[in-house]
């Protein structure tokens, strides 16, 4: 077992962005790994760029954090100069410009999602290399390999908010079950005309898939909780 704690911090990851009738839903797992060690089991991979645009990050943690910080800064300036909230397209384009011009140095794949008053909910995918793709739904990260078939079958145009969120949570949960580099909890962010809602689904609230076992209470928890009365015969 090669435990290199100096390996670059990468987010194995499963990230998803889905449009629904009225907005977008972004979803991600929460595992950040350094080689074979889970450096952070509860990380938040969905970062805010503006009030109405969020970005799901995957790949090198350092690269994606720094690019997000730059884009947040540029977008803030842009909003001040424009005098109104910036559009999702502008946010995605800024990410693409940084990603493409530094393609030799950066290793990150992201999904930008948001809502603006001109185009409504939009999802843009900016994978390795710096392509920009507007899609009705996008998946990314190492866990996404296991979801292509699932989305081909389960995705429908014009879903309701609850349907779409259930789809996202189910998808991330399936990817976590099969991908070693994804795990932890499922975080979702819903962006629509009314604003932003962030949700959290803990690992034990997710459904169990094929061959997954029920969780048992750890002996530590059982022993640690003090019993009110001594056992009597």
């Amino acid at each position: 077992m090669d435990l290199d704690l100096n390996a670059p911090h990468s987010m194995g990851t499963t990230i998803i962005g889905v449009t629904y009738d009225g907005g977008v839903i972004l979803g991600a797992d929460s595992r950040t790994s350094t080689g074979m060690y889970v450096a952070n089991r509860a990380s938040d991979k969905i970062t805010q760029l503006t009030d109405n645009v969020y970005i799901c990050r995957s790949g090198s943690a350092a690269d994606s954090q720094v690019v997000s910080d730059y884009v947040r800064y540029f977008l803030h300036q842009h909003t001040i100069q424009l005098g109104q909230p910036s559009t999702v397209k502008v946010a995605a384009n800024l990410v693409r410009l940084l990603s493409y011009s530094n393609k030799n140095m950066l290793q990150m794949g992201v999904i930008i999602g948001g809502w603006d008053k001109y185009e409504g909910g939009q999802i843009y995918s900016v994978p390795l290399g710096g392509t920009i793709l507007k899609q009705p739904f996008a998946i990314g990260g190492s866990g996404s390999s296991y979801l292509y078939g699932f989305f081909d079958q389960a995705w429908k145009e014009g879903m309701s908010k609850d349907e779409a969120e259930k789809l996202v949570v189910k998808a991330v949960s399936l990817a976590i079950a099969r991908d070693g580099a994804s795990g932890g909890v499922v975080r979702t962010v819903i962006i629509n005309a009314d604003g932003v809602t962030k949700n959290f689904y803990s690992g034990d609230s997710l459904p169990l898939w094929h061959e997954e076992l029920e969780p048992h209470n750890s002996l530590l928890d059982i022993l640690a909780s003090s019993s009110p009365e001594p056992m009597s015969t």
Partner: protein
Amino acid sequence: MVKTSINAPTKGGFNFDLCQRNEMLLKKGMQLPTFRKTGTTIVGIVFQDGVILGADTRATEGPIVADKNCEKIHYMAPNIYCCGAGTAADTEAVTDMVSSQLQLHCYATGRESRVVTALTLLKSHLFSYQGHVSAALVLGGVDISGPHLHTVYPHGSTDTLPFATMGSGSLAAMAVFESKFREGLTKDEGIQLLCEAICSGIFNDLGSGSNVDVCIITKGHTEYLRNHQLPNPRTYVSSRGYNFVKGHTEVLSTKITPLKSKAEAALVDAMEE
């Protein structure tokens, strides 16, 4: 001197040519000179009144213990401290540098330093060196917006956590935290948990050892407990003391070199303004 093409325009940023040369030399079989690393177990937790940082005190140079009692908890600001793991020179230099920058920023703004300021300064410095500055840090402090605890990795990524461990002993310490940490610990409970985690690193990791340093940061007050625990006392001291009398050591050979004939002072004019 490596000459790049004359026609290429000068690029900004750090020049990584020598890093590539070093990697090529390593592949050819050259041995790097050993440098002092802090093998290390460093930890931090957030408790009800603030943050507590902890570290072991062993610094290694390859397989040898270079310093049995080094200080790994570095001062950043009166309300912010930073534990460092990795190459000792890198952690010292980067924390000193950011500490100075923080002080200048403090004077410019007229306010107490914030932990996120230190975090951003550290992260942007480490990112621009693309991981070649081998400093893995646990940064903690209490500012106007509350207690904060962050980890910073050599490549420049950061995490914000309620409890964090870094260094070669991080797995041993994390095991202790994962089983015993809860939100809202009191100061004494926090210190006890922290010491347990560091001791776990000290006893189970070869790169960590010696004593436990603790630093408690709360709103308006910081306590730096240097050598809070000494679980590795020297036990083999002779009660009579050690006495090295002349004649105990066998002289194998003697060579006397007179120095007077070597040195020749030349008459020079005195320095003038």
